């Protein structure tokens, strides 16, 4: 992880650590904080705790997003402090609806000039963000909203497993990860398990991201904690609730970053500090899907 971040994430670049509610790579976020990257443009549909932490650490100058909340809990206080009071630094916002930001990734992924969607008509989001435009449908059905492509410098995506080439399989909420991966100039995948290529080839429908577009593969078990990885561990909701309280005070956040990020050498140390017993409690009961038969044709 240290090497992947040092190699691919530079000051001033734009990064998308994605995943909707689950698969959020906190391990990468913490490493970026530890390496003291600055002036990043952070892109995420739901900034979540990870960007709250990175913004509190002073890593960002701008946030591109579509829903700024602590999911199912409440506010993201560090981001609000940056927006409302410029603490620790001012933060520029660029705001979309979910489908609008998904559309930006999709246009970026397919290298198209825009993505058209039925949204924004009658909404003030059109004036809040001049990049969202209404155009006349060339086929005569009236006004249609368009958003431009988005091509992050780096995407960081967490998944259940990949092989050494970066062929990545993910099951559960597919979110926007495929579109982000294809849209981005560089891709880092972070996985719970590193598997043999034969495991990937045995179930090709489950491969979301081909190694063809992957620049680095990092094996980082529990790297999405306190978010979750389907089938591996549940969301650590106590951590989300604790952050809701702690993050209301900037000094408490600074102390938390000292203890849990700067004070630790890597994410492995974070996992060790929390302790295996805690992660065992987050493991769901098994609920495996029966395998399918692809057939052998020769």
């Amino acid at each position, binding site marked *: 992880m240290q090497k992947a971040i040092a190699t691919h994430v530079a000051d001033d670049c734009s990064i998308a650590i994605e995943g909707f509610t689950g698969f959020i790579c906190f391990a990468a976020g913490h490493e970026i904080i530890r390496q003291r990257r600055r002036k990043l443009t952070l892109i995420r549909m739901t900034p979540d705790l990870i960007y709250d932490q990175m913004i509190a650490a002073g890593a960002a100058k701008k946030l591109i997003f579509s829903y700024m909340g602590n999911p199912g809990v409440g506010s993201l206080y560090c981001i609000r402090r940056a927006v*409302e009071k410029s603490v620790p630094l001012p933060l520029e916002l660029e705001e979309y609806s979910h489908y609008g930001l998904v559309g930006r990734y999709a246009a970026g992924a397919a290298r198209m000039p825009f993505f058209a969607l039925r949204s924004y008509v*009658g909404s003030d989001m059109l004036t809040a963000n001049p990049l969202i435009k209404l155009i006349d449908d060339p086929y005569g059905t009236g006004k249609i909203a368009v958003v431009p492509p988005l091509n992050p410098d780096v995407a960081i995506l967490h998944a259940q497993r990949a092989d050494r080439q970066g062929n990545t399989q993910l099951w559960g909420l597919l979110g926007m990860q495929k579109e982000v991966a294809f849209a981005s100039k560089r891709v880092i995948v972070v996985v719970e398990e590193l598997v043999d290529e034969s495991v990937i080839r045995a179930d090709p429908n489950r491969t979301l991201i081909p190694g063809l577009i992957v620049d680095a593969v990092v094996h980082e078990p529990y790297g999405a904690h306190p978010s979750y990885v389907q089938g591996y561990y549940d969301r650590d909701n106590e951590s989300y609730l604790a952050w809701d309280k702690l993050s209301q005070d900037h000094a408490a956040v600074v102390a938390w970053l000292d203890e849990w990020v700067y004070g630790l050498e890597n994410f492995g140390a974070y996992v060790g500090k929390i302790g295996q017993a805690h992660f065992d409690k987050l493991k769901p009961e098994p609920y495996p899907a029966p395998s399918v038969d692809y057939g052998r044709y020769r």
Partner: protein
Amino acid sequence: MSDPAYSASEMMIAVAARMLTGARTVFVGVGLPNIACNLARVTVAPDMELIYESGVYGARPERLPLSIGDPTLVSGAVSVVSMADLFGLYLQRGLVEIALLGGAQIDKHGNLNSTVIGDYARPKTRLPGSGGACEIATNAQRTFMIMRLKRRAFVEKLDFVTSPGHLTGGDSRSRLGLAGGGPEIVITDMAILNFDNAEREMQLNALYPGITEKNVQEEVGWPLGLAAKIEEVSAPSLEELRLIREDLDPSGMYR
């Protein structure tokens, strides 16, 4: 028969569930709407499939989801798709019959603000923003709002229009080509409001037990019109309360 000791939240949940009678597809948010939908599914809408913006069609959650991206929504669902497919193929395609929405502010035409209180560039309070709300409000066949009646929420003019309702009223919505039908009812903790008039302006439709027209008007920031006949809504039944308390929200998170 009913239990007099029910909370305002339980009443909202029971009322919302009843309004979903016979529904086939409902777009669900977390919190009260989620409990209401799951209550409806075991009472008045057995064929209901729950749709979540996280990409889940036909969820069968085994616990109260902590958020709309909870892994319990995935296990046992009919289908899990990308968000591009969820918004494009399910919502925009017109497959969402009813969407449940809320916000920090609502105006008399059912437009919603979930973005900022105060000026956009210098907000007094920065709220979460749209999420999927703008396209849901645009494309769902029917929209039901769930919001507590509060004078600071039911306002004459929104600080920011996040999600379009009936816009400036009348046929302004269809003139602009919005696909869905727009807001139909507002389920509150005191009354049900609807938009059943030519102006598409919110009006009082039904009162909960012990609530008066005056109580409702006091929490609304404009002179609220009245439907031709004001109905009375019955309190949650013992069975509704049992399902909410024992099955759907045993920890009482939303009580």
